[in-house]
């Protein structure tokens, strides 16, 4: 890629997430009080406001919840490419890209099982991407 993607800049509240992806771990948070699992990261539960929350490694399993296939020019992507919403097994939804798969409506079928894969972007940032489950490349 001529240009790299716009990369995230971690904050104190999200650093554990980005440290996790660097270690190939997809980290979520679970409330110790009400057991709510949530994303994006914050040091309290958005359901009950408890500050007793535990960081844990998610399974990395997800389903394809929705997506668009962008045909717009982008400095770091070659259109057409899919921008996806995936529903993690633990409950939260997150935005990502689906890799290892044609970027077409025929190949991208809603509810298809996916699994996380990690793509190094820089010394500091590794992004969690998803690929069709069982399709190890």
């Amino acid at each position: 890629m001529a240009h790299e993607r716009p990369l995230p800049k971690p904050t104190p509240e999200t650093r554990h997430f980005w440290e996790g992806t660097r270690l190939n771990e997809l980290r979520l948070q679970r409330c110790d009080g009400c057991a709510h699992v949530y994303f994006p990261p914050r040091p309290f539960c958005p359901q009950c406001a408890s500050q007793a929350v535990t960081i844990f490694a998610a399974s990395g399993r997800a389903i394809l919840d929705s997506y668009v296939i962008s045909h717009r020019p982008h400095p770091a992507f070659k259109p057409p490419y899919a921008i996806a919403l995936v529903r993690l097994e633990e409950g939260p939804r997150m935005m990502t890209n689906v890799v290892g798969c044609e970027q077409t409506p025929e190949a991208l079928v809603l509810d298809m099982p996916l699994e996380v894969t990690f793509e190094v972007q820089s010394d500091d940032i590794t992004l969690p991407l998803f690929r069709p489950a069982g399709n190890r490349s």
Partner: protein
Amino acid sequence: MSASQVAIVGAAETTELGVIPDMSQLQLHADAALNALADAGLGPRDIDGVATAGESPTTIAHYLGITPQWVDGTAVGGCSFMLHVRHAAAAIATGQCQTVLITHGESGRSGVGRGGGRRMDAESLQGQFESPYGVMGPPTLFTLPVLRYMKRYGLTHEQLAMVAVVQRQWAALNPRASHREPISVENVLASRMIAYPFHLLECCLVTDGGGALILTSAARARDFPRPPVYVLGAGESVETPLVSQMEDLTSSRAFRIAGVRAMQEAGISHADVDHLMIYDAFAHLPIYGLEDLGFCRPGEAGAFITQGHTAPGGRLPLNTNGGGLSYMHSGMYGMYALQESVRQLRGTASAQVPDAQISLCLGVGGMFGASGCVVLGREPKRS
């Protein structure tokens, strides 16, 4: 105190709409404001409250020579002006100020005096959890929930395209609309793909323009040159700055909350609504809006629109100016939706709905991030 005590007594858009390369964004605010002041027969010294989004109320007040004692800079995207109407109505009703000017101006197309870049900060939630994945503005974000809606309810590509077709039917009746030539479902589906499943004609225009409103107490409203348009009720809410974090990809929580609240406050039922505006940045928004407002049951709005119920001659005239898809869309379209509601209730719309008494106007901000809803009436609310 009830918001029914407040009315819109001045309303105008910029003199030109569309491509206005000879005006800065700030001047677009001013052009609309001056037109609205003239419409109300007022001068800047008659205004004691200022609300705006996109520019700071400080800038607007100073530029126009207004000395306010009430300001509102609520900026939650394109529906900010619906929230301004609600806040202004409350402020006037409680005596915080008498006469409020709400302005919008946006050099969305020409980019004159638009200020710095709109790139998301890499530390923001969007910068960390959405920008890395190739998002390129609203066409790749606002559209993201729709495939889930289509799967859950069986909405077809043709039905989605029909939203644009019907709005073009309205635009054909409006000399100020950017695009007026009729289009078919086939035309829409043959237009350039922007972000599957959205084609060019299912995405809003990008234009320059502005609009302004002036509100005062209903008691004073009858003394103005134009027939007053009464604020019968309003609602507002926010949900999330991240479209990926919507509670439900097939429904907007903010639409539901703002809509119910506005209708309750106005004391109206769906059958009372003669005219409807639903902010249409993209073709799916009227579908979500019709359902979240309760005009259609979940999953039924696509068929409702396809059957012609929202088209010219239909029983629920919707987006009668042609909407963001065909009339104009500067970026924060909510002001233009409000302007059309006012025109319909004054009886001055290009595509006038016969004897429109009540208009409901639903706005969206961000990517399903916020909503404001305003119910306007030709007569004050009966208490």
